[in-house]
C-alpha cells in the first residue's frame, strides 16, 4: 500500500500514479509510507471494488470510483468521454445517471437513492432523498441536478449546508467551513502586520509568531470555541499531536490533515484519515463518482448507476 503524498489516497504498491489525484507516485520523495493507524471511530470506505473499467490509453483496469488511471495517470473523465463517443453506449446522447448511497455510522451501506430525473430534492420533508430522522437536515435542504452531463448539487439556503470530502489538495477561500471528526471550523485570513498606535508604540504582548490565517471552532448550539492561528507553511491537524489538535475527539485521526498557508492561498489536504475532511460547498458544484458528501449528519456517496 502506498499513500499518496498529495491526497492521502491508498494505492496498490504496483501503481505509478495515484488513483485519487493522478499524482506521480514514483516522484514521491522519502520512504513510501504505510497506511496510518485507524481510529476507534467507524471507518467508512470509498467505492467498494466494483466493475473495473479499462483505461483507453494503456488498457489497465481502473476500479470504480477512481479519478485517474493508476498506471499511466490518464484522467478517467477522458476515459468516460472516449468511451461515450465510442460504441459502448447504445443511447450515446443520454447523460449517465447517478445514485446516492447512504453510509451508516458503522460504515455499512444503507439506503440507495437513484437520481433518474433531471432534478431531485433532498431534505427532512422533501424527497426523493428523504432524511426525516436527522435534526441537522433542513426541511428542503438541497437540490441535485444534471448539467453538461454531470451531477451537480446546490444548497437551498439550508441551515447547515453541504460538505464534500476532500480528495487531493483543495483551495480554501476566506470564510470556508470545514468538518472533520466532530468539529466544525471556519478559516479566516489574518492581518500579518503588527498594529501600531498613532504615537508609534506597539501594544506589549507575547512574542509575535507571524500568523497568516486562523481556524475558528464553531460550537454546537452556537458561539465560538477555540481559535487556532496558522503560521505560513504546513500546519498539521491531528487528535493529540500537531498545530491544531482536538484531544477529546476520537473521530479525528492521529494525523488527520494538513492546512498549507502560502502567499497565493490556503490549501487543505487529508492525510488518509479514517473519517475524512469535508469542505462546505459554497456554490452549485459538480460531483464525481466516489465523492462523499455530508448533509446534516448523514454521509452519502455518489456512484454512477
Amino acid at each position, binding site marked *: 500500500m502506498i499513500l499518496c503524498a498529495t491526497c492521502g489516497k491508498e494505492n496498490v504498491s504496483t501503481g505509478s500514479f495515484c488513483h485519487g489525484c493522478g499524482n506521480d507516485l514514483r516522484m514521491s520523495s522519502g520512504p513510501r509510507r504505510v497506511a496510518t493507524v485507524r481510529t476507534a471511530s467507524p471507518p467508512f470506505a470509498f467505492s467498494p471494488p466494483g466493475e473495473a473499467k479499462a483505461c483507453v490509453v494503456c488498457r489497465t483496469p481502473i476500479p470504480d470510483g477512481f479519478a485517474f488511471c493508476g498506471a499511466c495517470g490518464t484522467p478517467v473523465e477522458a476515459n468516460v468521454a472516449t468511451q461515450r463517443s465510442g460504441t459502448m453506449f447504445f443511447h450515446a446522447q443520454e447523460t449517465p445517471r447517478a445514485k446516492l448511497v447512504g453510509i451508516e455510522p458503522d460504515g455499512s451501506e444503507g439506503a440507495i437513492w437513484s437520481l433518474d430525473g433531471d432534478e431531485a430534492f433532498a431534505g427532512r420533508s422533501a424527497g426523493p432523498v428523504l432524511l426525516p430522522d436527522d435534526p441537522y437536515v433542513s426541511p428542503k435542504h438541497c437540490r441535485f441536478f444534471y448539467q453538461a452531463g454531470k451531477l451537480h448539487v446546490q444548497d437551498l439556503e439550508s*441551515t447547515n449546508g453541504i460538505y464534500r470530502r476532500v480528495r487531493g489538495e483543495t483551495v480554501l477561500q476566506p470564510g470556508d467551513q470545514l468538518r472533520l471528526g466532530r468539529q*466544525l471550523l471556519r478559516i479566516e485570513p489574518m492581518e500579518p502586520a503588527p498594529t501600531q498606535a498613532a504615537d508609534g508604540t*506597539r501594544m*506589549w*504582548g507575547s512574542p509575535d509568531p507571524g*500568523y497568516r490565517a486562523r481556524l475558528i471552532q464553531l460550537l454546537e448550539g452556537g458561539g*465560538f470555541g477555540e481559535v487556532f492561528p496558522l503560521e505560513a507553511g504546513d500546519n498539521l491537524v491531528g487528535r493529540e499531536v500537531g498545530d491544531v489538535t482536538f484531544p477529546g475527539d476520537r473521530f479525528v485521526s492521529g494525523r488527520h490533515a494538513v492546512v498549507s498557508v502560502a502567499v497565493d492561498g490556503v490549501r487543505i489536504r487529508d492525510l488518509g484519515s479514517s473519517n475524512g475532511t469535508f469542505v462546505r460547498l459554497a456554490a452549485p458544484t459538480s460531483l464525481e463518482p466516489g465523492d462523499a458528501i455530508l448533509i446534516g449528519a448523514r454521509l452519502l456517496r455518489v456512484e454512477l448507476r
Partner: protein
Amino acid sequence: MGDSGTTLPLRDESTPIGRATGSLRLSADDTLPGLAATFTYREGRLFLRDEGGASGVFVRLAAPAILGESDDFSIGDKLLRFLGKVPATPPATSGSTRLLGSARSGNGPLLRLQVMHLGGIPGRVFAKPGPIRIGRALGEILFADDPFVSARHCEIDLDPAGAILRDLGSSNGTFLRLPKGGERELRPGDTIRLGRNVFRLE
C-alpha cells in the same frame, strides 16, 4: 525578573512614568507610550494610575481577583485576555432544524482565553470548562516554551461572583491589568509591570 536593576525613587507628590515624558524615563521600551502611568501620594498612601497607553499597567496579584470580559493578565512573557464565557448548551427545540457545531466537552459553560501577541495580534483561543489551570508542565493550558511560567502557575474558575483568577504560588507571579484610566492603591512589596519593565515597590 530576579536581580534588582535601576532604583527609581518616588519622592514627589506625583511621579509620571513613560517613554518620553515624566521623571522616570524608559526610553528603551517601544511598547510604552510617552506617558504610561502616574504614581501619586494622597494622605500618606501611594496610588498608581494607568494613563491609557496600549500596553497597560499590570499589578501582581496578591489575592484572587474577579476577571471581567476582555480583562488582560500576564504570566511569564505571555499576555492573556479573558474573553468571557460561552453559556451552557441551550436545550434542543424539537421540530426546527438544529444548528450544527463542534461537539463540546460537557454541557456546562466554557471559559474562553486568548493569547495576545506583540502589537495586539490576536492569537490562540482556548475554550474549556472551569477550572482551567495554566502552567508550564501541569494543567489544561500549557506554555512549555516559557521559562518564566511556573509548572503550576495560575487558575481560572467559575464562581457565582464570576470568573476568578488565582495565582497558584508561581515564582514570577500573575499580573492583572488595571482598567484603562483606572487607579489602585499600592502597598510595599507590590510588583508592577509596565511594558517590558517590572518594578517592585519598597
